[in-house]
């Protein structure tokens, strides 16, 4: 069955959801199994429309839950197809059990996660709670800061995940509403450029290879389980980084758009730095530039690859910085915050003796304003001048009521 190609303008005005749906169309997915949830619904809705309008040669499977959606994706991927889906928040939480299945079974499924808060209280807006929930699941996690990233990173994700040396599933995160529903100019690839970048799907150990029957989803106990998990961790730690870099390099060659495992902004001579993810990276960059005009040497470190965590690249990026703030957009649940802990881990054994402080912000879609960041950089400069953290190690930004801080 032949399918139609779509003529795109060089720059289209797309929100993050439609950008992701267009990228999935251009990658020609064999099976999309999905269950709708705000704010990710338009991705799979958009893909379903492309399929109904004969722009896609594949199967769209409507299922009864997100758990079933990922389960169907696992079956289709084990059978030997290119597979993708999308979800958010509660749906992501319901999917968690199957996320561990797909990574353990080494199935290169692509999951667009449009980040949204986790109930209770129920909330449809963007924070990173679902992203954090997935961080031990053995998936590769890429983070988009804007619709352009959401489009580009989908192509890059297939390129990395489907590589036979990797064979791990990959999430592309974008911020709910701030990215997913905010239309911006997105530079496009033609259908042929996009498809040729990811190439034809190369199956591996697929169930449809009837001459080489395999059993997927087997059970192992204390005699084998550890070895399987060790192998998976080894491949995450050693094989993914070079493949991500290769994919970024190849994509830059194709499109001129450059991505980095750790996105450094004005970090060469920075005294103070903010480490954050998602749309906040772009806000922080703008404020950092303004702080430079005021004489504060401010920089921003954006995490592009969340898992595997770029320990060494982070260490290098923050070398020589005097004061660092981590911005965690997830309720820390009785801990200092994921980014705070990761930065502390990366820097503790290094020569960088920076004053490290953590901030919790933006829960349930609460705005992070430029004023918040100006105040934050000012606190960092005071820390840098004093050579130690002058504030509590954990502070909350933008919450009403008495100032909230711990540690």
């Amino acid at each position: 069955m032949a399918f139609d190609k779509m003529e795109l303008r060089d720059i289209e005005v797309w929100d993050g959801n439609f950008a992701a749906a267009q990228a999935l169309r251009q990658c020609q997915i064999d099976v999309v199994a999905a269950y709708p949830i705000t704010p990710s619904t338009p991705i799979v809705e958009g893909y379903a429309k492309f399929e109904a309008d004969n722009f896609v040669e594949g199967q769209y499977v409507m299922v009864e839950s997100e758990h079933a959606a990922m389960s169907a994706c696992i079956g289709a991927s084990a059978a030997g197809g290119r597979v993708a889906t999308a979800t958010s928040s509660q749906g992501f939480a319901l999917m968690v059990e199957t996320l561990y299945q797909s990574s353990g079974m080494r199935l290169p499924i692509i999951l667009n996660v449009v980040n949204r808060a986790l109930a209770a209280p129920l909330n449809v807006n963007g924070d990173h709670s679902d992203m954090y929930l997935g961080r031990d699941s053995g998936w590769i996690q890429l983070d988009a800061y804007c619709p352009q990233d959401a489009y580009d990173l989908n192509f890059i994700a297939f390129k990395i995940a489907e590589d036979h040396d990797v064979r791990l599933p990959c999430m592309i995160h974008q911020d709910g509403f701030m990215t997913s529903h905010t239309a911006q100019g997105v530079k496009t690839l033609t259908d042929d450029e996009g498809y040729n970048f990811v190439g034809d799907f190369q199956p591996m150990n697929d169930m449809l290879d009837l001459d080489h029957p395999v059993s997927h989803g087997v059970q192992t106990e204390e005699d084998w389980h550890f070895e399987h998990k060790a192998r998976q961790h080894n491949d995450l730690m050693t094989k993914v980084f070079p493949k991500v870099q290769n994919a970024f390099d190849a994509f830059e060659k194709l499109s001129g758009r450059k991505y980095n495992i750790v996105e450094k902004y004005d970090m060469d001579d920075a005294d103070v730095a903010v480490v954050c993810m998602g749309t906040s990276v772009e806000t922080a960059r703008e404020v950092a530039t303004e702080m430079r005009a005021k004489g504060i040497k401010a920089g921003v470190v954006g995490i592009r690859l969340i898992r595997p965590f770029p320990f060494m690249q982070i260490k290098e990026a923050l070398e020589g910085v005097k004061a660092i703030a981590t911005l965690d957009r997830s309720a820390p649940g009785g801990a200092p915050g994921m980014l705070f802990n990761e930065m502390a881990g990366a820097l503790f054994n290094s020569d960088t003796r920076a004053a490290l402080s953590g901030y919790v912000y933006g829960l349930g879609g609460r705005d992070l304003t430029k004023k918040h960041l100006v105040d934050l950089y000012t606190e960092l400069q005071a820390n840098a001048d004093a050579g130690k953290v002058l504030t509590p190690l954990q502070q909350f930004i933008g919450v009403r009521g008495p100032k909230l801080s711990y540690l």
Partner: protein
Amino acid sequence: MATKGWDEFEIGAMLRSFDGKAENIATTMQEDRAYSSSNSFTASVADWRIDKPVFHKDYCIDCQFCWIFCPDMSIISRDKKMIGIDMDHCKGCGICVEVCPTNPKSLLMFDEHIEDEVALAGWPEKDEGEK
């Protein structure tokens, strides 16, 4: 196999059924198939059996009912002749005994520890029914 390290097996929780390419499997007898070492056919998976079926050849009419109904493919039959039971895979469910139509039955359940010879020696007579 149990001595292999984490870097010595194929990725993913998957196991191959056969060594190499599987060809004409449907027309190849089990004993002639190249089952892999990870295939359960090559392992004993019957260690939790409590009662075992014993086969009495003299009464069997080779109807193949047991062969059809066995859920573990543990009835060995060749050229439609009942040969015996694959005790490495039989779980002792007793379905073969239940479906056996002969009088007396050609298959009966015995405690796992009873010798087959003892079981056969004590085989019941034909049930003549009420006269």
